């Protein structure tokens, strides 16, 4: 346990790029006057490293068949994904101002076919890993080198469907599939350790046939080094348990279940949010 606690990232200092990406999230929060604050902020470095360094894609041609697939299965963390998609040019940053608007394309959960770069419509939890298994098998059948990354929440993996998919991925030895868990230890109702304890989480994934590893989910260098080594085992799917802080980068929201989702921000709160991320994007 001490090893895990040492990796939770509470003291990890965020660099300018991480703060900039968070400012895009805040832009969306302000645009929609609502959003899953904590759930998005814990994801930023995971998605940053994936989109900056790992995934093969072409923002100008989001359906490029040979691309790697990245499914945000914890769809409620979509503001983090939208921040990366805006940063990479899949969508215009102005769309963030219309987050959840009737005339916007960015909803409170991401939709395939509506938002370029979104691989699957998620929001109901526990769907992404099975879809990812299907995509990984499709790549294998089509002899494509595409890899599939499925990013899940810790509350999400309460769902039995996740473990059905994990069984299946292990059985098929899908080394082109990586399950990423944003383990911020807080689900909507409270601490995961109290609501539905997941420990020993690493052992669970390992026992389902994954090569599993823990990492500080806010340490860009550690994440980069780890993703560079994929697959960790050429005969198994990989599970990366990213130890993160819910609300990371927003001091007053960090580790506070109240900030899972917030709406109707007061002017002072908006000022505080902007101050946390170094100003408006």
């Amino acid at each position: 346990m001490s090893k895990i606690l040492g990796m939770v990232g509470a003291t990890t200092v965020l660099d300018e790029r991480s703060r900039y990406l968070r400012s895009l999230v805040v832009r969306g929060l302000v645009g929609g006057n609502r959003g899953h604050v904590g759930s998005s902020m814990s994801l930023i470095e995971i998605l940053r490293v994936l989109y900056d360094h790992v995934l093969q894609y072409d923002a100008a041609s989001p359906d490029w068949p040979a691309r790697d697939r990245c499914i945000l299965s914890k769809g409620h963390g979509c503001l983090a994904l939208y921040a990366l998609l805006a940063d990479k040019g899949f969508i215009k940053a102005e769309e963030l101002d219309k987050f959840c608007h009737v005339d916007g394309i960015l909803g409170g959960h991401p939709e395939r076919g509506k938002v370029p770069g979104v691989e699957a419509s998620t929001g109901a939890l526990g769907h992404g890993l099975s879809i990812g298994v299907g995509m990984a098998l499709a790549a294998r059948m089509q002899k494509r080198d595409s890899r599939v990354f499925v990013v899940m929440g810790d509350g999400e993996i309460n769902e039995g469907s996740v473990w059905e998919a994990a069984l299946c991925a292990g059985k098929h030895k899908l080394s082109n599939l990586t399950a990423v868990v944003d383990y911020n230890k807080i689900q909507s109702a409270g601490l995961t350790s109290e609501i539905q304890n997941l420990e020993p989480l690493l052992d669970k994934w390992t026992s389902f046939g994954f090569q599993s590893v823990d990492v500080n989910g806010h340490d860009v260098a550690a994440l980069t080094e780890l993703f560079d080594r994929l697959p960790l085992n050429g005969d198994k799917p990989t599970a990366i348990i990213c130890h993160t802080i819910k609300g990371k980068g927003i001091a007053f929201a960090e580790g506070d279940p109240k900030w899972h989702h917030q709406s109707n921000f007061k002017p002072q709160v908006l000022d505080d949010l902007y101050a946390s991320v170094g100003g408006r994007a």
Partner: protein
Amino acid sequence: MRKTCVDMVYTLAQKDERVVFIGSDLSPGLLREMKTAMPDRHYMEGVTEQNVIGMAAGMAMDGYTPFVNTIATFITRRCYEQVALDLCLHDLPVRLIANGGGVVYAPLGPTHLAVEDMAIMRALPNMTVTAVADADEMIRLMEASTAWPHPIYIRLGKGGDPIVSRAENGFAIGKGIVMRERNGREPVLLISCGVMTSRALKAADLLAEKGIVSEVIHIHTVKPLDDKLILEHARGARCVFTIEEHTVIGGLGSAVVDLLVEQPVAPPPMRKLGLPDRFQRNYGSQDDLLEIAGLQPHQIAAHVEQELFKLRVA
């Protein structure tokens, strides 16, 4: 019908490289030939209905046409959210082959019956709901399915069901078939689906013996419904009867009611013949349960007669 359907998956797979088969925990050796010939397109994934639907969706997103097969009630109820979101929201060409639609699994009790399957599938946008009459028509459905870009629910009968469909009638998804033309004025219109069409035809014969003119329309595609055909034949009918091996809530009967109530002229009197809104209390055979529900040909004919009598008195 079941064997024909599953065998057709392999037939289609030989012609179409997009076709894959995904079973749950089915009979040993199912599609053995396909598994041998194309092992990477034959999957048997165990009792994981939620996973196999999501997995099929993932394959379909990357160009495949998966045929997923398991027991009807499990492929509908157990994984309803996956069917709704992974398949229907994404509008993917995944086919759900549903063993034992209706009361086929009568001896196994209410946990294994699929009597509201069409209702819950029909409620989903983008879903196509089919219930063919026999094995020959199953071949025609499977062939037609290759050009259909949406998810399809394929309800299977027991197997060995009498062949009543005819090749000369053709087949198109969403188009009903007139199985028995009216042979007089003001006929009773019998609209049926699935294996109930053979019973409707027999009921029509019994009615003819009593001098009651009827016509029979077979609706192998409950959604999208063939509005034009039904409206054309309902016009001028003395009474419309829908006949289905399904609860009277939400299936073929409800689909026809939904259509008729929206018309500018008052529809003819209508009755829905189907299974009652309760869990089955008996075991026995499919025929036993249909008899209890009053859905055998002689009971259908008697029901029609009684209703016509009531209408005359009224």
